[in-house]
Structures are given as C-alpha cells and as structure tokens.
C-alpha cells in the first residue's frame, strides 16, 4: 500500500468521529477531513429517544467531543456526499466539490425506515421518525399535554419512545406487525418478557396486526390497522427499523444491498473502508457480511479498522453488545441470537423486570441478556468469546 498521508471520512457521527480519534491516537499525523451531512458537531444519538426527548438532557450534553478536544481535523459540516469514485478514492459533495484522499472511510450511518406506500404518510403533519437531533426536536415540540400518541413498531426505538412519552404523562399505544416484539434480537420468549414492560406500565401494545395506513388530510388523525381498527392519534412515531444510508453510493459499483459489504477489518476495496451503521463487516461466526447497527460497534470498530489501515493487526472484536432503557429498566444484550439456542432464565423473572438469561449453543455460552442485572450481565459478557478479525476473509471486490 502506498504511504497513507490523507484520510477522508464521510460521516461525522459516532463512527466518523471515532475513526478520527483512532487515527490520531494510533499516531497518524497526516491530513484528516470529516464530511458531515448535518451541521452539528458529532453528537450522541441514543438519548434522542430517551433523556433528550424527555427534556432531561439538552443538546449540549450530547456532544461527543470533550471540552478542548482538537483532533486537527478539517471539518466539512452541512455537506452531503453524492458520489464515490472507488478507483480514484474520490468523493463528490453536494456543492460539486471533488475531494481526493489516500483512503476514504464510509461512515454515513443509517436512515429511519419509512412506512410502505411512498412518502404520503410521512408528509402528514404529526408523523415522526427519530434518527437525528432535528427529528427529536420536532417530536419533542409536539409532545404537549393531552396529546394522544401512537407508536408504530415495538422494537427498541419504538419501545423507548413509548416509555418516554408515557413518562411525560401522555396516552400512548404501541402497534407491532409481528406476533411477538423483539423476537429477532432476543427470541420469542425473552422478546415477550421485555415487551411485558409496556403492559406493566399501562401502555397498550397491539401485536400481530400490521398498519394499513395513516388517516388524516394535512395532519394525522389516526392509525388504521389491516383488521379495520382505527387508533385515534395526534402524533404518530414510526420506529420500524433503519436502512444503511448508502443511496449516495448507487453509482460506485460497490455491493451495498445490505449495507456496504466489508472484510472483517472494514476493508471495502483498495483505499476504501467502511464502519458504523452503513457497513456490513464480514462476521466469521455468521459466515457472511452483517450489519450490526449497534452503538458500541460504531465506537469500537473504528479502532480495529484504523489498526488495519495502518498495517497493524486489527485484533479481536468483543461480542456484539447493545442496551435499551425502557420504563426505568436497563436492558442489556451481548452476543449473537441466531435462532435455535437453548435459552435459560438463570435469575430473576419477567414479572419483576430483573431477568438474567443465557443463550447456549451446543452447551457453549453464545449470548446473554440482562434486565436491571448489570453485575451478573457484565460478568457473563466478559466470558463470551471475541472474534479474531485478522483471520483471512475475502475482501469484497466492487461489482462492475
């Protein structure tokens, strides 16, 4: 590889900022350029559905940069990237500028998935998604006393928003198309255990009946389900997952179907790397590229990727980890739930919101879940095997 003198990072959120930090802390003294679509300096997104939405935490508290931090980075904020030239490692911005660097890091994150049926539903006033600071500000401004809220989707974002809205004293209903919420990440039994939090706090959860459409002319007035039920609503929050923000890579020739396909160290093509929510790193356990979408990975994987960029061993990735806070209960999960594991509740119970559960495959611990069980959870998390990243894996080649 040619001497690395300049790195262009596209995306200035958690993964992009962590990449710049990792480059500097690992001794890279060349030029770093950070391109960000939003105007804000890097900020932390998890509180957007929790403390920030509740008004307990302000925007200044979300800053990822420490006071006085100076990574000697050239910031290009408020600019979206519109195209990547893989062969030239060049990125075009929305103002027509073309930036060339020795290495380009794709860290553009993800976008909130929208309801099917085009943008019409999302054009109604009162309909929200929660992905960035502007989204959360707009939603927060509408959570006024007496407002009826319907949350579409009982995944983590939907559940956190419902919990926050309930905490503000508003009436909230959650609708989930799947028969059991969170069965993908946690399995049916424990997904239901977590979902009982809604009912135990008096929040109605309707499962197994998909949304037919949103009602209203200019402003939303309700949510109609496929069985004809109409749930009146003044505010609707759609939390039905996210998609890799890779639209801008359509002309690049890269495989971006399920996120940017990468090696197990984040390599995409010579001089091109990807990390964070937009990236699908090769997972040796699954045997295929996989988009994790976990905050902790967006923070930690840049360190491994930068090691590889600088010609060092990428080391070992810890087992995937995520958390969610709902109704004052801290839910933590580490490892991989691929289906077919033997799941055992080792301590506590769903009724008291203090479950500690293990997931075993052929007797080996592969995942662990805790609800308000930080000590047991952390101890078990430590014993989960990590994933060596340097094991040779095919570096995906651009499709032409």
């Amino acid at each position: 590889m040619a001497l690395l003198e300049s790195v262009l990072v596209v995306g200035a959120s958690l993964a992009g900022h962590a990449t710049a930090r990792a480059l500097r802390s690992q001794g890279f003294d060349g030029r770093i350029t950070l391109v960000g679509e939003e105007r804000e300096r890097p900020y932390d997104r998890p509180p957007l559905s929790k403390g920030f939405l509740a008004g307990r935490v302000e925007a200044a508290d979300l800053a990822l940069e420490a006071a006085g931090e100076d990574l000697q980075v050239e910031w290009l904020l408020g600019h979206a990237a519109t195209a990547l030239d893989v062969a030239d490692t060049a990125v075009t911005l929305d103002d027509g500028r073309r930036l060339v660097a020795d290495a380009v890091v794709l860290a553009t994150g993800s976008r909130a998935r929208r309801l099917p049926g085009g943008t019409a539903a999302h054009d109604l006033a009162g309909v929200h998604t929660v992905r960035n600071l502007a989204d959360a500000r707009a939603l927060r401004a509408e959570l006024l006393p007496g407002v009826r809220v319907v949350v579409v989707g009982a995944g983590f974002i939907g559940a956190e928003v419902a919990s926050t809205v309930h905490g503000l004293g508003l009436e909230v209903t959650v609708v989930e198309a799947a028969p059991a919420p969170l069965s993908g990440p946690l399995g049916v039994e424990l997904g239901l255990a977590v979902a009982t939090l809604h009912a135990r706090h008096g929040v109605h959860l309707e499962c197994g009946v998909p949304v037919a459409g949103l009602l209203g002319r200019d402003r939303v007035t309700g949510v109609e389900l496929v069985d004809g039920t109409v749930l009146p609503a003044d505010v609707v929050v759609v939390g039905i997952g996210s998609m890799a923000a890779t639209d801008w890579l359509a002309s690049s020739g890269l495989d971006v179907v399920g996120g940017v396909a990468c090696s197990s160290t984040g390599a995409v093509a010579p001089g091109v790397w990807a990390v964070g929510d937009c990236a699908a790193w090769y997972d040796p356990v699954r045997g295929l590229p996989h988009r994790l979408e976990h905050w902790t990975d967006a923070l930690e994987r840049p360190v491994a990727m930068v090691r590889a960029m600088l010609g060092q061993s990428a080391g070992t990735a810890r087992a995937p980890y995520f958390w969610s806070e709902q109704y004052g209960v801290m839910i933590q999960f580490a490892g991989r739930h691929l289906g077919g594991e033997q799941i055992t509740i080792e301590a506590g119970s769903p009724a008291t919101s203090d479950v500690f559960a293990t997931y075993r495959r052929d007797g080996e611990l592969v995942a662990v879940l805790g609800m308000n069980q930080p000590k047991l959870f952390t101890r078990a998390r430590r014993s989960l095997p990590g994933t060596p990243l340097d094991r040779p894996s095919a570096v995906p080649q651009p499709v032409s």
Partner: protein
Amino acid sequence: MAENESSFRVGLLADLPPGEALRVAEVSPPVAVFHTEDGQLFAIDDTCTHQDASLADGWLEGCEVECPLHASRFDLRTGAVDAPPAKVGVRAHAVSVTDGEIWLTLSADAPNLPPGVTA
C-alpha cells in the same frame, strides 16, 4: 495516613476479593472501591459521568474499569476517562488498609456528575 480525621472505615479487606468492587453508598455521591486482580486497592466515584450507572458493577480489567452500560473506561489510579460517551473523569480517592480494614479518604474536589444527577 489512613486514620486521619477525614478517613473512615468502609469494610474488611477479607470481604473484598481480588477482581471485586465495593460500593460505598453512605457518602454522596457514592464511591466504588476496587480490588484489582494483582492485589491493589483503588477508590473512585461510583457514578459514571455520562449517565447514572454504578462503576462498581463495571468491567474491571487491570487498572481500568469500564462502565457497565456503555464503553467509557476510567483509570482507577487517576479517575481519567479514555473515550466517549463520558467526556470528563471521576474523582480518585485515597484508600488504604490498616489491620485488615479498608479506610477511605475522600477527595476535596467537586465531583463530576452526569446530566440530571445531583449529589
């Protein structure tokens, strides 16, 4: 210097095996005392500066503890933090052992508490 006027006893060393932590909740904000695998004792504020979480429940490795919720690691010797989401360190306190008893002397500095948490 363990038993000067501002020191107080927080427990017995025999009750705190290596690799374990003790949460001292009698003081506000609470303090966490760690017994590292190689036998050293350290004390720092127990509350992560990012969010209300007990560092005594965290992941102890060498002379560092990682917050049980997120990824910030605190140096037990100085209280300094390595990475976001926490942006400022915690206070480090003096800790010593006399006749098998653990004694704590609190730092006179002001604590760094997470948004929304008061001592």
